[in-house]
């Protein structure tokens, strides 16, 4: 492979080539939503449209081939779904190209996903994929052949505001996906198009039926497009590979620089049951390996409250995960509730709007905060700290504040920005 990082495209001045005049690229996964987005754009006829699909995960290369007869079916990176994208593009009368981006997807999404798992965090691969693959690399690649804008099938809206483009929740709250887009910047919003932002899922399906799109009957795509079977098995396989690579590099006399668990003695723990302890550190039993737990999880802990102990006999929840010690702290619902958390990677979409007040740095910014994609949101105060960190204080203590998840700030329908729960 080429050693140098891919060159980035300079800003495009007014373009003289006919092919490049106002070209809009639409990201097509082969699923229902992005197919309808492409169809609507083509139907509007406001300029040339090109459909793009990303080959993100080469199952044959990564996994030695899918089971016979199942090649990628139903997975958004599978070859069959890319075939669906091509069919829809033909129906919409637009050209379609598939761009190979599997190396970038591994670097920017899959490896961090495994890192998160092995560190006991709850990963958010979809946010990372949007920020670091779709709205960054894909648009960059599309600019090389003249695209000016990138459209996707996300349910979210872009609204022109006093400080530039704003990101807003979709018109229909039930399908809103703005949570997954919080890391976008204004420059990206200025070149993005969300044709589904005003539509409900039913309306989208109706468009597909009316247009006779090949994907009209398709269900929702899976969240973890690159994981065919169980997530834990996937992570264990990846971790085992890392360990092999790490040992190989150690035996070559190189510094073991493999991220995650591979370079520690953690591999020995891979598969070893975690110690389940209460907040006082008393061991209640042995459970599954630590990375099989998520903060806030209640079911399948491997220890029952009736075993009885300091937790007080009620239902038990995962409170915290210590990857290094292979230890999972459990406790009651009351112990799970947290009044505040520290965030990292703090991002504001329109800082002039939301940080302009003189006391923003000290008193903080009031917002409704969602701490996972399906969270209803809670009133909170966000205080920026040094180094892109922040302190988020809830009006009411919240359950399931899981390190690794995105916390997204809203005011009304507008997304102010967000951070990662540390």
């Amino acid at each position, binding site marked *: 492979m080429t050693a*140098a990082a891919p060159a980035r495209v300079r800003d495009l001045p007014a373009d003289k*080539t006919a092919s490049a005049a106002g070209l809009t690229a639409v990201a097509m996964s082969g699923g229902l939503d992005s197919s309808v987005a492409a169809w609507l754009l083509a139907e509007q006829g406001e300029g040339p449209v*090109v459909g793009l699909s990303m*080959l993100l995960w080469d199952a044959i290369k990564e996994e030695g081939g899918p089971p016979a007869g199942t090649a990628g079916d139903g997975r958004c990176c599978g*070859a069959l779904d890319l075939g669906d994208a091509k069919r829809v593009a033909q129906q919409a009368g637009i050209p379609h*190209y598939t761009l*190979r981006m599997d190396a970038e997807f591994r670097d920017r999404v899959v490896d961090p996903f495994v890192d998160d798992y092995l560190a006991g965090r709850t990963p958010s691969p979809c946010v990372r994929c949007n920020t670091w693959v779709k709205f960054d690399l894909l648009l960059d690649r599309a600019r*090389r*052949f*003249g695209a000016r804008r990138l459209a996707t099938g996300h349910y979210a809206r872009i609204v022109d505001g006093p400080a530039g483009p704003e990101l807003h929740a979709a018109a229909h709250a039930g399908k809103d996906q703005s949570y997954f887009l919080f890391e976008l910047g204004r420059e990206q919003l200025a070149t993005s198009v969300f044709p589904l932002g005003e539509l409900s899922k039913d309306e989208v399906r109706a468009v597909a039926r009316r247009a006779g799109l090949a994907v009209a009957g398709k269900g929702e795509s899976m969240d973890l497009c690159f994981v065919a079977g169980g997530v834990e098995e996937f992570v264990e396989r990846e971790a085992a590979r890392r360990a092999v690579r790490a040992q190989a590099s150690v035996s070559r006399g190189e510094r073991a620089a493999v991220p995650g668990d591979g370079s520690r003695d953690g591999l020995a723990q891979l598969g070893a049951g975690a110690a389940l302890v209460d907040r006082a550190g008393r061991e209640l039993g042995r459970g599954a390996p630590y990375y099989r737990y998520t903060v806030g999880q209640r079911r399948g802990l491997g220890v029952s409250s009736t075993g009885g102990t300091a937790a007080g006999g009620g239902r038990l929840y995962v409170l915290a995960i210590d990857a290094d010690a292979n230890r999972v702290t459990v406790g009651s619902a009351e112990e799970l509730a947290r009044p505040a958390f520290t965030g990292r990677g703090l991002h504001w979409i329109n800082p002039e709007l939301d940080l302009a007040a003189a006391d923003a740095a000290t008193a903080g910014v009031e917002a409704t905060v969602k701490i996972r994609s399906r969270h209803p949101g809670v009133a909170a105060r966000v205080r920026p700290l040094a180094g892109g960190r922040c302190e988020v204080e809830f009006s009411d203590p919240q359950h399931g504040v899981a390190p690794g998840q995105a916390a997204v700030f809203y005011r009304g329908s507008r997304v102010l920005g967000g951070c990662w729960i540390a």
Partner: protein
Amino acid sequence: MDTPPVYLDHNATTPLDPRVRSAMLPWLGERHGNPSSVHRFGQAAREAVEAAREEVAALLGARAAEVVLTGSGTEANNAVVLGAGRRSGLSGRIVISAFEHPSVRAAAGLVEAAGMEVVRVRPGADGVVDAGAMSGALTPDTRLACLMLANNEVGTLQPVAAVAAACRERGVPLLCDAVQAVGKVPVTVGELGCDFLTLGGHKFHGPLGAAALWLRPGAELEPLLVGGSQERRRRASTENVPAVVGLGAACDLARRELADRRRHLAVLRDRFEAGVREAVPGAVLHAADAPRLPNTSHLAFPGVEGEALLIRLDLAGFSVSTGSACASGTVEPSPGLSAMGMPPEEALASIRVSFGMTNTSDEVDRFLAALAREVAELRRLMPAPAEVVA
């Protein structure tokens, strides 16, 4: 688009010759029949299939009985390589060139995984395999050698006759994948001296879905498909009569028009290659001095991403390729170019232009103008690699 798009990817597939279509149409309409049936419908279909087989044989200078009709060149190549593995009990060696078509490389990979030894002889930087290197890899336990006649990407012609002579001396059967060569250059089995030869009709204005495997008398083949006595038990399946009829018609036309075709293709190719040196500074023509197909130009534009260039050209109405088309339709550095020792950045900066009989000099000129414009545009957009490093 004001003008219709220009197709310049004939090594991927070619448009159906209208005369071939005319020959096929009765078998897509009023005529039908299973060639194995005893009755009059079967008899008529059998006659059509055997007439086509004779056309295939005539094009190759062979006899009809030596021709096995298949569904694709891939199937024919698979049958020979996998068959050699089965006949040998998965022991011994297979020698192939390192830039054979994937249907040979992947089949060799399968028998290798099952226990055979596979030796891959790399072509030189000029895209030509050294006959001595290939012959030198032949051992007493070598069960099969494979050398394509024309490389599908750079279009270079390989020294098949010389390798065939060496194979004959050592008693090693030779498979010649001539899929890219047939219909563009003279191909006769007598001159080549190979034991197996494959061709595919859609590469020379015949239909998709009909191909052929020629076997030297006495050469042995393990059938890939079983369950019927068709093709003398060498390939079970009801014959695809319309496509086979089309293959026969395409072979007939290719045999009669070959000289004109070579001339027409070479004129277009030479016009393009002369023009591109003027129109696009820095263009690198691959395998320029090697013996080549008359219709193929493979060239790199250093600092330009082949994928972006391909898409720009397609949007502008000129359809080329960045290498061999693969199933997922994506662009990646091809193993064939890597085998020639081409650095990945040069391989990724390359496109393949393959002309066909329906292309015109005017199309070549318009393509040159578009190519110059799009390469210049990409160079303007993308910093040169040196700037990136700095």
